[in-house]
């Protein structure tokens, strides 16, 4: 019964809860048991709510019994990326500098999830301040990919993706600044959506790069992503970049999914050199399947995408160096006083030296350099011009096609340590995902199969014009249905059984 509960989609679990076939307490208990059994091996969570989650679930069960009107995800447990502040739950953003900090308020997406009756299970691991593509930059140790525990789960949101892939949570919240929702989805065989910039409030999201960050759903199915998207999207007066207009239902777009007549543009610059053979093979098989079902596939060119990574690694550090100035040892988090005392500035410098990891220091220094007098125009100014050129590429492409398609990332999951010593090669992981953040357009990654050469998951990415997020759910749901018919079930049904690790975890007394 317990194993059956954790393998349900959020939508299916929501239906069982609504029908009274199962209680939220039972569903939440099943997921907490699963976390206790496998998270010693996976390490997706930095904090688990435990009995407090059971209390929240019991309250939802009481409300349901009293006949209160509840939404489709009421009573469904959810994992929350540690980048979002949560009242009463530790929030570290994967950094030592915030160890033990308990925020006095909830981020808006967390408030919305609670109002929808969902049950926060805990906080998920991530690269420190979301800087990374592997979770190896977490101050609390890496998360392991449930498909192969020696490999990275992607990043920065590797914890959220792994928690969902390992059936520790039906769904999760993530954040995507250059691919931190979509690339982990790609390497873990899950679904991740970066909504249009401004669709979901950033209030209470510990900022990395404010003009790029966006919160979004991390799930196992396209419908679950749509249901969660419908919960968290919407205008928020507390975020001045929040889009004021109302959104159509993404869940409706999934239920009406139909690709006949849909024009899909294949970005030729993201379909060649540097992309693993099995990644490209599964990508093209997916396109053929869509074509057979009525979609029209056309090649498009985005000549400036090749400058995206360069522009991103100027804009992101510049914004991050400014955003991370708030970690000053005064209002929250760590304080380290140099031996023999010191002025407040010396305390700040000692605190930031002790509290930040190597990648965070690297990017703060890089950003400080890019913004400094004499270099500003050559670096930051030029990067902002590239942003214009990337947007023009998107505008030109979307004049001819409804959505764009590419593999989500160049390779399947790599092994721990493989790219740690070479920051530039680590940054190349984000080549297909970064352009969407620079232009603010929405993107989805969903599983397209396993690469034949290594048996590891591969994702396909679709991009749509700003505010046209519903198109992603349409094409994503259609493809998911076609692929699952071919596979005879979801891709994650082929993931290795983690029960062997349950024993190890229990023996070691993990969690």
């Amino acid at each position, binding site marked *: 019964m317990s194993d059956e509960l954790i393998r349900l989609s959020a939508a299916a679990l929501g239906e069982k809860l609504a029908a009274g076939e199962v209680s939220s307490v039972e569903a939440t208990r099943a997921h907490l048991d699963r976390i206790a059994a496998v998270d010693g091996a996976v390490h997706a969570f930095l904090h688990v709510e435990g009995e407090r989650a059971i209390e929240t679930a019991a309250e939802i069960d009481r409300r349901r019994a009293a006949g209160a009107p509840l939404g489709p995800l009421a009573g469904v447990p959810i994992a929350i990326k540690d980048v979002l502040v949560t009242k009463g739950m530790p929030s570290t953003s994967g950094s030592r500098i915030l160890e033990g900090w308990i925020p006095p308020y909830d981020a808006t997406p967390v408030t919305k999830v609670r109002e929808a009756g969902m049950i926060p299970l805990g906080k998920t691991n991530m690269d420190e301040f979301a800087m990374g593509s592997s979770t190896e930059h977490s101050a609390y140790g890496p998360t392991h990919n449930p498909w192969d525990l020696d490999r990275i789960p992607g990043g920065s949101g590797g914890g959220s993706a792994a928690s969902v892939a390992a059936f520790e949570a039906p769904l999760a919240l993530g954040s995507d600044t250059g691919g931190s929702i979509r690339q982990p989805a790609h390497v873990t065989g899950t679904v991740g959506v970066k909504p249009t910039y401004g669709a979901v409030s950033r209030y209470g999201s510990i900022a990395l790069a404010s003009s790029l960050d966006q919160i979004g759903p991390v799930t196992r199915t396209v419908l679950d992503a749509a249901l969660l998207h419908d919960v968290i999207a919407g205008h928020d*007066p507390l975020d001045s970049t929040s889009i004021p207009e109302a959104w159509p239902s993404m869940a409706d777009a999934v239920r009406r999914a139909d690709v006949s007549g849909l024009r899909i543009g294949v970005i030729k610059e993201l379909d060649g050199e540097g992309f693993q053979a099995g990644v490209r093979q599964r990508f093209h098989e997916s396109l053929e399947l869509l074509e057979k079902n009525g979609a029209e596939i056309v090649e498009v060119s985005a000549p400036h995408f090749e400058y995206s990574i360069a522009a991103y690694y100027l804009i992101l550090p510049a914004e991050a160096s400014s955003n991370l100035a708030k970690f000053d040892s005064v209002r929250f988090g760590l304080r380290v006083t140099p031996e023999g005392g010191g002025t407040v500035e010396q305390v700040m410098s000692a605190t*930031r030296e002790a509290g930040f990891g190597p990648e965070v220091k690297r990017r703060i220094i890089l950003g400080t350099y890019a913004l400094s007098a004499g270099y500003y125009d050559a670096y930051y100014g030029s990067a902002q011009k590239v942003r214009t050129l990337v947007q023009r590429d998107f505008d030109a492409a979307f004049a001819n096609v409804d959505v764009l398609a590419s593999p989500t990332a160049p390779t399947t999951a790599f092994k721990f340590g493989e790219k740690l010593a070479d920051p530039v090669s680590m940054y190349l992981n984000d080549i297909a995902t970064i352009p969407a953040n620079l232009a603010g357009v929405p993107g989805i990654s969903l599983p397209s199969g396993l690469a034949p050469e290594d048996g590891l998951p591969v994702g396909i990415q679709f991009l749509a014009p700003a505010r046209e997020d519903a198109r992603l759910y349409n094409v994503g749901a259609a493809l998911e249905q076609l692929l699952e018919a071919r596979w005879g079930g979801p891709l994650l049904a082929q993931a290795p059984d983690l029960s062997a690790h349950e024993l190890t975890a229990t023996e070691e007394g993990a969690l």
Partner: protein
Amino acid sequence: MSEITAEQVAHLANLARIALTDEEIGHLTTELGQIMHAVEKVSEVATPDVPPTSHPIPMQNVFRDDVVGTTVLTADEALAGAPESDDSRFKVSAILGEEQ
């Protein structure tokens, strides 16, 4: 563009208020050089006729009335996570050093 020196990195670390060790400054000097070399590519296409974009979605500034909101923290809540506080204030060490 110019090479990055260890002195520059030390200066940047001071501006960014991070007390880097000499070893870290050494690593970062090499790495920053490599990263800057990779990102200088932007200058190839950033010609004077291209306008810069600072924000992905065109937006206007948002205003609200200057009144106390409904979601403000109490002083106790605001101070709850502070390393050190005194009554209703954040507490820090001396602002000025002896030589200042």
